């Protein structure tokens, strides 16, 4: 081992140093700002989370799995996963091994941060020793890994379908600069190390290249320009990084502990949501996921573009994108870095001034309280009501438009001998979720307060809901200690399991549609499937579960008109009918109404299926 | 406006009015409001034109006000009217002329009702017999007294000393004609010119040299509206309707308003003072109001009667600017002097609207 240059410095490191310091400074200031934008409570929670070993362990796992190995992308598509993880992990290893080399060979140079990056230029190591050849091999190997990733990335630019992506993000100018500089870094490093390999040593890649180069370029003077080019490519990449999608690399490092600490999105442009926006790698997974994407023009309204417009502060587009979204939550479900597209949009909606002063003082909950205050047992008390359960059934606004669901639900309750009471027999107060979706927290709170009064006054032990839109808000926003909040699909699953409801199976093939608010919203996927399977043959749509496609009728969108939703609904129906089921089953009155408009086969609610398949 | 179009409608709505021999009934309220009007009607018909007009001191109200205020049932009103007809029959007349528009409307309505429901007429005859031992014939012709002045308008014009023409400019006076609601709105065919474009007052104004203004709220009620005025709480509503009319006619700068109803001239006249007090707004020239006259008063002026003999001093809105325009001479000294120059005492004059 020998150091080639005693000074350990050459001017070509300056561009790298400039870029490095710039990006470090930028990220540091950004991190501090974001942490300060958190509410004091959230900030405290965030700092305390580092003391929690469980969270810390999770952080470490996520850092490796998400940032380096891109496990989520592997799950989606192997090639896509390899492409991302090869570049991320390969590069990470190059940096780590570079540092190990510095530690091992030139510990006195540790403080010169350019040293590990340009190690081969400054230090010649004999590759004949075991130690030497091992590191040379490792470095060449990971360089090869990265280069293979780069080659795939170039292919992906042209043919994204191979990677399981129908549509990719349209790159912005800064993204392109970042991309080309990133692509340039590793071939340039290979070139630079190739030129130096005969002096500093190398392994299979660099040595071989050295021989090839020397066969037609004998001049040693070629060496320095390549190192300059390598340094400049690094500099360009780091300087453009904060303004391009590559900002996700540092941002995600902070996002992971913040997410694991459980910090919620509170403001569309501050704190964790800003961090999420910067963590967006523009991978474009959300573009294909978006149910609106079936209309091509809507591709520009995917979360990735929302993030981009927020970075650009393009207010008009931010509002447009935020208002249009159906809030189906699929982009959040599929996002590899955990950008909560739906929550950011709701938060964005809440920033906007609402000139109406909502006033619900004339809503009289007392008469509703009186109406629910007389629990009656159903006549058919075949199965004894052991646990003294009192069910309050809130059908919800949307169910009022699908009376079949309410009727079947009451019928099922009677058949199971459940003691129940209707909460909104003569029309109820909205649960507040649509208001929350519009970003209006205060009026929603008022509705929540009134409904809470009614529920508490009823003496119910269980609140049964038919509408998943209600379910989500009841679970998340209502404080109903001691009262179980349950969707009818879960409840029927339980009734069947407890033997209180006897369902006759049939060979009707049902395709089950996961309503957004029930599946992604409340994580209820299995219970309805068990219920459907009890009544017939369960068929899955082409995409289902977490990736089910919104029916298009969602109340989440504030701006999509009736006609504009048609194609989305038809697309969702095509997805469900891929396996040619006899009927479509859903568990949401809104999905039922929406599908019913365009479907070519019966659309029924899960409770209607069960009601028709249960005797007395 | 297409004048020929109106002429066509007028020709469609002509009514037969006998020239002579009328049984005349007065209005309940006109004698208090503008006392010289009814006197002038008889004066013109009897003395100037030499016609036979009979009146009887036993006639009473027609019951119209009570009927329109919903305080008596229709059958009561009909019996009262039947008694009036009995008086006419006893006097040997068959042409019945009413001074009051509401009476005229009331009589028309009752005659039409009897025509449609003869059993009701029989019942009323019975009730009249039971109550007063009287019998009656229905009038052969029913007219409002303005119908007669309309009929005599050309004779009056021939004898006219003055015309509704601005003496200074030679231009016809701009006249707003206001027809009482009960004249023809209920039974268009019973009024001269129909309900939409009544001709009865227009005919007089045209014959005497004036020019009638067609303004947007021409058809609107004067604001009296019986209950609207009689109940004090509703009086603002009554006033608002009058106000609406004045706002609508204002741009046309009318020189005068001619009316044929007992209530209308009173409210159009008095409310101008109230509006002036409340809003500080006057609709005439130089802080004055727009003079409101009955058709008899106008006929009297045209024929050269002394304004103070016509009772024009009892108008709230000063008539002097109008007299000046027409060129009628008057003695301001005598304004508040009655018959035989008896001093009527000069009232306190308001400041919000110019009076003399």
């Amino acid at each position, binding site marked *: 081992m020998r150091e080639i240059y005693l000074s350990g410095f050459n001017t070509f490191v300056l561009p790298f140093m400039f870029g490095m310091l710039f990006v470090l400074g930028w990220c540091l200031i950004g991190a501090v700002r974001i942490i300060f934008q958190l509410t004091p409570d959230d900030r405290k929670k965030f700092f305390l989370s580092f003391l929690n070993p469980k969270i810390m362990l999770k952080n470490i796992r996520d850092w490796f799995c998400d940032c380096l190995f891109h496990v989520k992308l592997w799950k989606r598509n192997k090639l896509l996963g390899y492409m991302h993880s090869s570049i991320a992990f390969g590069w990470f290893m190059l940096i780590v091994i570079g540092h190990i080399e510095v530690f091992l060979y030139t510990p006195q140079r540790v403080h010169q941060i350019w040293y590990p990056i340009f190690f081969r230029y400054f230090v010649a190591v004999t590759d004949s020793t075991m130690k030497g050849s091992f590191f040379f091999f490792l470095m060449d190997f990971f360089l090869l890994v990265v280069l293979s990733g780069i080659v795939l990335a170039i292919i992906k630019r042209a043919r994204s379908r191979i990677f399981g992506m129908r549509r990719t993000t349209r790159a912005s100018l800064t993204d392109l600069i970042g991309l080309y500089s990133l692509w340039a870094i590793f071939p340039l490093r290979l070139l630079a190390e190739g030129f130096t390999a005969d002096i500093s040593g190398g392994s299979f890649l660099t040595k071989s290249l050295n021989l090839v180069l020397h066969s037609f370029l004998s001049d040693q003077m070629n060496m320095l320009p390549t190192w300059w080019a390598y340094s400049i490519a690094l500099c360009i990449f780091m300087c453009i990084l904060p303004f391009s999608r590559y900002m996700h690399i540092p941002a995600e490092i902070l996002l992971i502990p913040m997410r694991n600490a459980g910090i919620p999105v509170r403001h569309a442009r501050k704190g964790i949501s800003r961090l999420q926006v910067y963590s967006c790698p523009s991978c474009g997974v959300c573009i294909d996921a978006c149910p609106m994407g079936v209309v091509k023009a809507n591709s520009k309204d995917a979360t990735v573009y929302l993030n981009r417009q927020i970075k650009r502060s393009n207010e008009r587009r931010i509002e447009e994108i935020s208002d249009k979204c159906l809030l189906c939550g699929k982009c959040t479900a599929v996002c590899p870095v955990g950008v909560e597209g739906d929550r950011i949009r709701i938060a964005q909606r809440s920033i906007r001034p609402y000139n109406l002063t909502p006033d619900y003082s004339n809503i009289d909950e007392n008469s509703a309280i009186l109406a629910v205050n007389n629990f009656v047992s159903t006549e058919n008390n075949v199965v004894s009501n052991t646990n003294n359960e009192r069910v309050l059934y809130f059908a919800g606004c949307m169910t009022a438009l699908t009376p079949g669901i309410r009727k079947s639900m009451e019928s099922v309750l009677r058949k199971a001998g459940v003691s129940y009471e209707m909460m909104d027999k003569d029309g109820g107060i909205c649960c507040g979720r649509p208001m929350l979706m519009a970003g209006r927290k205060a009026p929603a709170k008022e509705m929540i307060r009134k409904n809470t009064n009614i529920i508490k006054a009823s003496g119910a032990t269980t609140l049964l809901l038919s509408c998943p839109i209600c379910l989500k808000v009841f679970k998340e926003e209502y404080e109903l200690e001691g009262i179980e909040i349950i969707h009818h699909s879960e409840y029927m699953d339980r009734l069947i399991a407890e033997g209180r409801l006897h369902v006759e199976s049939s060979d009707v093939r049902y395709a089950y549609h996961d309503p957004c608010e029930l599946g992604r919203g409340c994580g209820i996927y299995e219970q309805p499937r068990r219920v459907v399977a009890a009544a017939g043959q369960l068929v899955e749509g082409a995409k289902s579960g977490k990736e089910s496609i919104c029916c298009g009728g969602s109340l989440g969108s504030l701006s999509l008109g009736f006609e504009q939703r048609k194609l989305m609904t038809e697309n969702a129906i095509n997805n469900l009918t891929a396996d040619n089921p006899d009927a479509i089953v859903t568990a949401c009155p809104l999905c039922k109404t929406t599908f019913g408009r365009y479907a070519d086969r019966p659309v029924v609610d899960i409770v209607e299926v069960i009601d028709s398949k249960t005797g007395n | *406006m*297409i004048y*020929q*179009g*109106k002429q*066509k*409608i007028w020709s469609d709505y002509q009514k037969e009015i006998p020239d002579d021999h009328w049984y005349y009934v007065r209005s309940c309220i006109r004698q208090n409001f503008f006392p010289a009007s009814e006197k002038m009607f008889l004066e013109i018909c009897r003395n100037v034109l030499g016609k036979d007009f009979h009146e009887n001191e036993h006639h009473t109200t027609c019951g119209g006000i009570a009927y329109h205020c919903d305080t008596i049932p229709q059958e009561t009103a009909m019996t009262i009217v039947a008694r009036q007809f009995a008086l006419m029959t006893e006097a040997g007349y068959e042409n019945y002329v009413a001074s009051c528009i509401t009476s005229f409307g009331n009589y028309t309505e009752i005659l039409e009702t009897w025509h449609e429901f003869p059993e009701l007429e029989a019942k009323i005859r019975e009730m009249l017999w039971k109550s007063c031992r009287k019998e009656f014939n229905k009038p052969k012709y029913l007219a409002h007294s303005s119908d007669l002045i309309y009929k005599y308008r050309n004779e009056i014009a021939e004898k006219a000393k003055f015309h509704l023409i601005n003496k200074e400019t030679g231009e016809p006076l701009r006249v707003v004609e206001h027809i009482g609601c009960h004249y023809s709105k209920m039974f268009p065919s019973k009024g001269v010119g*129909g*309900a*939409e*474009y009544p001709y009865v007052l227009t005919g007089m104004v045209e014959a005497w040299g004036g020019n009638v203004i*067609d*303004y*947007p*709220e*021409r*058809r609107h009620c004067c604001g009296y509206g019986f209950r609207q005025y009689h109940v004090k709480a509703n009086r603002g509503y009554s006033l608002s309707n009058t106000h609406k009319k004045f706002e609508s006619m204002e*741009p*046309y700068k009318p020189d005068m308003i001619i009316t044929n109803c007992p209530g209308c001239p009173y409210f159009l006249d008095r409310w101008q003072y109230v509006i002036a007090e409340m809003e500080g707004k006057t609709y005439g020239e130089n802080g004055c109001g727009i003079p409101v006259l009955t058709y008899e008063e106008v006929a009297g002026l045209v024929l050269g009667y002394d304004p103070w003999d016509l009772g024009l001093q009892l108008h709230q809105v000063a008539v002097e600017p109008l007299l000046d325009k027409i060129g009628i001479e008057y003695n301001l000294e005598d304004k508040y002097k009655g018959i035989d120059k008896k001093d009527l005492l000069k009232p306190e004059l308001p400041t919000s609207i110019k009076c003399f």
Partner: protein
Amino acid sequence: MKEIIVIIGGGIAGLEAASNLLKLGYSPIIIEKSDHLGGHVANWHKLFPDLTPAKDLVDELIASSKDANIFLNTEVSFINRLKDSYNIMLSNGISIITKYILMTTGFRLFEASKKEEYGYGIYNQVITNSDLEHWFNTGQDKRIDESPMNAIGFVHCVGSRDEKARNSQCSKVCCITAIKQAIELKEKFPDAQIYCFYMDLRLFGKKFEDFYTKAQRDHGIHFIRGRVSEVGENIEGKVIVKAEDTLAGKPIKVTLDLLVLMSGMVCNPDSSKTASMMALPIDSDGFLKSSDNVFHITASPKKGIFYAGACTGPKTVPETLAEARSAVLDIHSHITSQEK
């Protein structure tokens, strides 16, 4: 020998019937009292809902019926019933003996001046639907100022569904005509606000509803539910319209540069006159009475006399044409059954 069929009325029903009778080899005679063929449609500009030029339709009908015997400026003086035929005496002195008479006497537009409160013939800016079509065709109407207008109004149901106007039935076509004319005026005067005062909108026909929503959405035409109560004139000579906005429950008024009255269809008095010569019954709506209003709308109760078009009630152009063809078929089957 060719069977002679007398068609009374040279409107579109008469022309279409004549053309079809000619195709079947009969010899139709058209008697038309006015100096032109095509009736009301000939004076119309464009037809709803596709804005087809009325002239094209009338020209085509005239061309296809040119081989018929046509008497213009001719009226029926009297008709005698012979044993199994009719002797028709015309005002030009000609008499015709025929077994078959087709009444295509059509309708007459309600005289808008009868609704005195709307001021037709009194106020300069009040015209009728027919006047407006005439203006569309010729560009000549002293009442329509070519300078930009601020506001234009349409009054639906003028003389229709109006018992006081002695016409209690719906004239069927005025709603859609008003919408058509409103769109046409909006295109000519894009800055004008256009108000349609209606009692009910009866848009029953093919594409009518589309036309309506187009008027609302694309042309911003205001539809106000309420019958106009009275029309006045302000000092600038503009018309002031008063109505109740029944949906808002409030009186409403607006100043307009032009008011178009949608005169309805009433029975043509000439039609009743001719009908009385043959003792044909009149229905309660004043139009000619068919032998059955569902099954035999084109048949009269009298042998050999048939109806087509608006003489039996208000009809649209396509309905009238269809009825004319239907009547021809009725006559044809009647003749062929006689021959057997």
